[in-house]
């Protein structure tokens, strides 16, 4: 009896000690609170951290937290000021843009941003950035006209200028002048987060910039007030899509980007801990035709192929679930300024008989159409398979060249090697931002008098309302000459944990103005 009592007392004493220790531990954890952090699963390791160095979306997604441009987009895809104080003052002839900068904006090294930083950054952008170089051809000069004033002079009227300056990919980022080099080593920007560390294939770590100079306007899309509510952002590269899905379901990731459409059912079944996010009209697949060499150099043959193609079938094979794609001829979504149905009769025809007739008239002699696609994006491959079948129905031979992505982006620069290649792009708010075939010299090498006249009218029109109508004319020429086919629009699937609050679905996911709650 006494030994039993002794045991009980010891047990009670031990329990009390355990409770006391736990309380002590709890107290100590509340005193030394760990920084709030979010684990964000990205589709790959960023190609570079230079915000200007690549057109890759992933680099933009990460580095837009560190660097800011002069302008950005609001929730309705209008250009809005970011580091600029307001929209530029444009001279009567439309060639001189005077940009006034915000004052008191601090770089991550504590120095205030001024016009010299902006001039040096924009000049670098026109020299090294794939997008900036193209815009640079339109620019006559970029000069500082005071500590907070920059003057940008154009050679000719160029309406897409502000859209180009606002884009996060291949960004016209404003860098601290002293960090500018061919290879940037210190990533010093003005963004709400500062770069801390990169461990390839593990994480890119950003921490809150406490001296961030936020705008005063309410947040809207990428524009307005940005606030770093989470102390640490960890961008974790997770190239395997199924690993991103499992990581979301197990609660390891607060956000997982671009998940396979098939995983929607599992995400929906997972209950309250995971929230699936659909970003509508996220991107468009497009098929580029080789207009200079090979069987499709003939416009009639391109039109024959366009007639044979059924874009609806391709989108269904590519994305499966009808919630995730739209089959429509308009290159821009309904409700946007560039919505147009011009050329709609030439879209999704899937008419083998008519295609055969056009090919026969064009003197088609059985030469195979070489379709180049990569399995890096499974939907590219699925669409290529459907294309081959549709061509077969129309009596046109095809040859599938399935290569890896690094090979595709190399081979497409040689006109001797391919006739069609498959790729995709985000839907941008301005037509001139994508696809690159709208400019001269991009693979496919489309060049024609109709292209030049309609695009030159479009690019020189500064009135947004009239530009909308002029885009319809460009779209008509694209359907008439078939340099590429815009296959349709797809929605993307991502997921966030319940604890990540305030996230807005966006083309380049951003995490300022988001917060994490609980553990």
């Amino acid at each position, binding site marked *: 009896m006494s030994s039993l009592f002794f045991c009980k007392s010891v047990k009670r004493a031990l329990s009390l000690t355990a409770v006391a220790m736990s309380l002590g531990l709890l107290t100590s954890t509340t005193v030394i609170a760990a920084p709030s*952090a979010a*684990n964000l699963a990205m589709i790959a*390791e960023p*190609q*570079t*951290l230079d915000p200007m*160095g*690549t*057109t*890759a979306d992933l*680099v933009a997604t990460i580095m837009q937290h560190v660097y800011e441009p002069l302008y950005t987009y609001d929730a309705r895809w209008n250009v809005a000021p970011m580091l600029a104080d307001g929209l530029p003052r444009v001279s009567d002839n439309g060639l001189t843009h005077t940009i006034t900068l915000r004052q008191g904006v601090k770089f991550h090294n504590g120095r205030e941003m001024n016009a010299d930083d902006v001039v040096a950054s924009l000049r670098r952008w026109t020299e090294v950035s*794939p*997008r900036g*170089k*193209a815009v640079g051809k339109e620019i006559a000069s970029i000069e500082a006209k005071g500590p907070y004033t920059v003057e940008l002079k154009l050679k000719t009227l160029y309406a897409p200028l502000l859209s180009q300056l606002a884009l996060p*990919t*291949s960004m016209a980022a404003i860098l601290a002048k002293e960090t500018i080099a*061919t*290879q940037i080593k210190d990533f010093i920007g003005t963004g709400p987060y500062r770069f801390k*560390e*990169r*461990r*390839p*294939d*593990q*994480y890119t*770590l950003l921490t809150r910039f406490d001296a961030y100079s936020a705008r005063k306007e309410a947040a809207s899309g990428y524009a307005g007030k940005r606030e770093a509510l989470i102390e*640490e952002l*960890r961008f*974790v*590269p*997770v*190239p*395997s899509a*199924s*690993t991103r899905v*499992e*990581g979301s*379901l*197990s*609660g*390891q990731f607060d956000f997982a980007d671009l998940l396979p459409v098939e995983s929607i059912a599992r995400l929906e079944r997972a209950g309250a801990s995971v929230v699936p996010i659909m970003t509508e009209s996220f991107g468009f697949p497009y098929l580029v035709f080789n207009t200079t060499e090979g069987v499709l150099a003939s416009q009639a043959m391109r039109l024959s192929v366009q007639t044979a193609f059924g874009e609806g079938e391709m989108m269904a094979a590519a994305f499966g679930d009808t919630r995730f794609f739209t089959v429509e001829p308009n290159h821009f979504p309904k409700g946007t300024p560039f919505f147009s149905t011009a050329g709609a009769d030439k879209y999704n025809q899937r008419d083998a008989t008519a295609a055969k007739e056009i090919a026969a008239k064009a003197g088609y002699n059985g030469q195979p159409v070489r379709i180049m696609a990569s399995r*890096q994006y499974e939907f590219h491959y699925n669409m290529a398979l459907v294309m081959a079948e549709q061509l077969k129905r129309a009596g046109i031979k095809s040859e599938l060249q399935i*290569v*890896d*992505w*690094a*090979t595709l*982006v*190399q*081979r497409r*620069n040689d006109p001797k090697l391919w006739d069609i290649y498959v*790729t995709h*792009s985000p839907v941008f708010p301005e037509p001139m931002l*994508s*696809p*690159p075939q709208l400019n001269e*010299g*991009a*693979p496919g090498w489309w060049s024609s008098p109709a292209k030049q006249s309609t695009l030159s009218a479009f690019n020189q029109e500064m009135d947004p309302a009239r530009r909308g109508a002029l885009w319809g004319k460009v779209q008509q020429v694209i359907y008439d000459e078939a340099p590429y086919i815009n296959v349709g629009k797809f929605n993307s699937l991502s997921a966030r944990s319940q604890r990540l609050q305030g996230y807005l679905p966006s083309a380049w996911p951003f995490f300022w103005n988001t917060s994490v709650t609980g553990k």
Partner: protein
Amino acid sequence: MFRFIMARLGGTVAVLILVAVMVFALTRLASGDPIAVLLGDQASAEDIAQVRVQYGLDKPLLTQFGYWVKEVLQGNLGQSIFLQRPVTQALAERTEPTFFLALFAVTIAALIGIPCGLIAAVWRGRFVDQVFSAVAMLGASIPSFWMGLILIQVFAVGLGWFPASGYGNPGVSLAERLHHLVLPATVLGVLNSALIIRFTRASVLDILNEDYVRTARSKGLSERVVILKHVLKNALVPIVTVVGLTLALMIGGAVVTETVFNLPGVGNLVVRAVLRRDYPVIQGALLVIAGIYVLINLVIDLIYMLVDPRIRV
């Protein structure tokens, strides 16, 4: 012994030279362009050509090879095109997860494989032998990605005992990092134990028929002493070889498992480098992996000498 080691070291150098030539030739013969990947989908051919010059990729292949060899002889494996760091640093960062994963997995494989193989051999033809042989066959046939996904679903998503992927958040302790290795090491350990079971079983069966085993039994030694002291010890040579080669294979990178579990190991580094054609990383990593292979083979030979006195003669 000294002459033996020197001869093997000479062979090692020859192998490494051959590997250097082969790796360089193969990476450059394969189509694909790292700069086109680096600059992104919207970059023009003109942009790509300009940046190729910056990285010296416009030079003739022989010049590039000569430059690389010169650098390697100075102990410099080059600079990664994508990772913004030297290849040696990129490799060094991958050593820890790969090393612990390999060690963890080989330990699991040996702990399962050697006892099971031994039991299967001792009770040859009995039910337990058939069960272990069937398990070994199954283990050799299951794809590692499938087993990985099943373990993730059960132990990470379902029970929440282990993390689903990765190697821990920034600044976590070694214990936490090793916690991330439990599931991948189990996958690799279980799958690789199959080979060890089969080798141990075959090797022990050979020894069981030897005269000295019969002698040991006839002089009245207990079965336990016969098996553990006379049979297992003599059967160890091929088992050590298999365990060593398994270790070497894993240090070279357990590519599929590392991909499923998103581990920043050497295998992952090489595969991702191949996909984006990061030439310096592919060349440097393969050269180092080949070096480690050759070294492990050398160590296995030395262990042979310790285990089997006949080789020393």
